[in-house]
């Protein structure tokens, strides 16, 4: 074991860590924004709304993230129309391809989590909201969605961890994230153990931070919505 190489290349790893954090945070935020309308569509009673959302969720949950990234990164160039459109600015960069793929992917998973949480809303709550004379949109905004976010929180925490782990795939399409940094160090010095274990260590720290963060959120922000133990 030769850890001097790792210490010399620490800046590379820290840069990689920063890229990983960017990828994950941007993908999670935009993915969540996409997931809320998708989940609402998936619980809708109109099949015209429900069907596209269910198909989207089925596709993104049923195929590997690597396939989705390759479809965007290698696949998009196949179409003349895409190459000549404004979208090409986005899809010719590995960075934005990865973010788009991650966001679309996490949107599928998050929508499914939210759908489950919305469907588990106790009937009494919606009944009470209707009795108060709330319109449907008010009821969703004030009653159903806040409660569903609380119920979805543990599963969403897992999804965030999966997204962090999935983000390592960015290293495969030439992005220098944590995994990409490890790949570079390994290629330069041929120290597979040290280089990848260091990356693994950083990922492990991130995972622990996420777990800790979600526990904290559950305890502080959502204390008033904690499920009652009967």
């Amino acid at each position: 074991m030769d850890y001097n190489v790792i210490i010399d290349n620490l800046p590379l790893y820290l840069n990689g860590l920063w890229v990983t954090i960017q990828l994950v945070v941007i993908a999670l935020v935009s993915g969540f924004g996409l997931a809320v309308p998708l989940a609402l569509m998936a619980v809708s009673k109109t099949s015209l709304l429900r069907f596209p959302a269910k198909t989207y969720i089925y596709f993104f949950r049923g195929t590997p993230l690597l396939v989705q990234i390759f479809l965007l990164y290698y696949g998009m160039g196949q179409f003349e129309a895409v190459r000549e459109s404004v979208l090409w600015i986005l899809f010719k960069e590995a960075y934005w391809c990865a973010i788009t793929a991650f966001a679309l992917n996490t949107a599928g998973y998050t929508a499914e989590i939210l759908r489950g949480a919305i469907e588990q809303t106790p009937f009494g709550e919606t009944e009470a909201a209707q009795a108060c004379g709330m319109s449907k949109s008010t009821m969703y905004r004030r009653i159903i969605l806040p409660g569903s976010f609380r119920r979805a929180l543990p599963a969403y925490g897992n999804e965030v961890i999966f997204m962090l782990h999935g983000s390592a795939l960015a290293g495969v399409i030439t992005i220098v994230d944590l995994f990409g940094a490890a790949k570079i160090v390994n290629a330069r010095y041929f120290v597979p153990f040290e280089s990848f274990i260091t990356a693994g260590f950083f990922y492990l720290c991130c995972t622990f931070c996420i777990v800790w963060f979600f526990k904290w959120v559950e305890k502080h922000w959502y204390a008033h919505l904690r499920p009652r133990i009967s």
Partner: protein
Amino acid sequence: MFDLHGYFPMILEGMTLTIEVALLSLLIAVILGLFGAIAKLSKSRIARSTATVYTTLIRGIPDLVLMTIIFYGGQIIVNNIGDSLGWDYIDISPFVAGTLTIGFIFGAYMTETFRGGIMAVSRGEIEAALAFGMPSWKVFLRITLPLMVRHALPGFGNNWMVLAKTTALVSVIGLHDMMYNAGVAGGATRQPFTFFLVVALMFLSITGLSDLGLRWANRRFSIGVRKV
């Protein structure tokens, strides 16, 4: 709809390999998961903490990173051991590395699933078996194991689906699976989108079929369970 320029057999070949990797690693994962669950529920503190370290580490590190550690690092370890024992140079094939890694990773997830399943088996059943004078290994094989299947099945199904999708990663360490072949075909025909879409549909068919099978199994193992 898809013009595959005669590359379809190659994709199918890749799919066979993907399914082989998936099933073999599932077998490893189930065995590791059972041992892990027994260790986590055992009275020995060493067994418990070993299992906890295993599940925490594995679930905290991305599968791709673990795979490269085992693929590149395992090579070095095996040959270091080999050197001191006077063996010839041993080449770890990507197939072995991929299958072992995926099995090893999902063993950790299976451990948690099986642990939950075993804990859900009612205490009375086990007490009855012990009262019959069964030794504890017999209690486990004849009573706990068959009864926990029903409780572990939904989690097992989820793990299997995630595992099947994770096999796509073996293409990264150079195994000629469905992904890899689609990349080759897509490069040769300049139609990468078409080929990766075909792979996506293949994966959808695998997960779709598994879903049907798991539903059947769920019904089969829940015979005699009164529904609320």
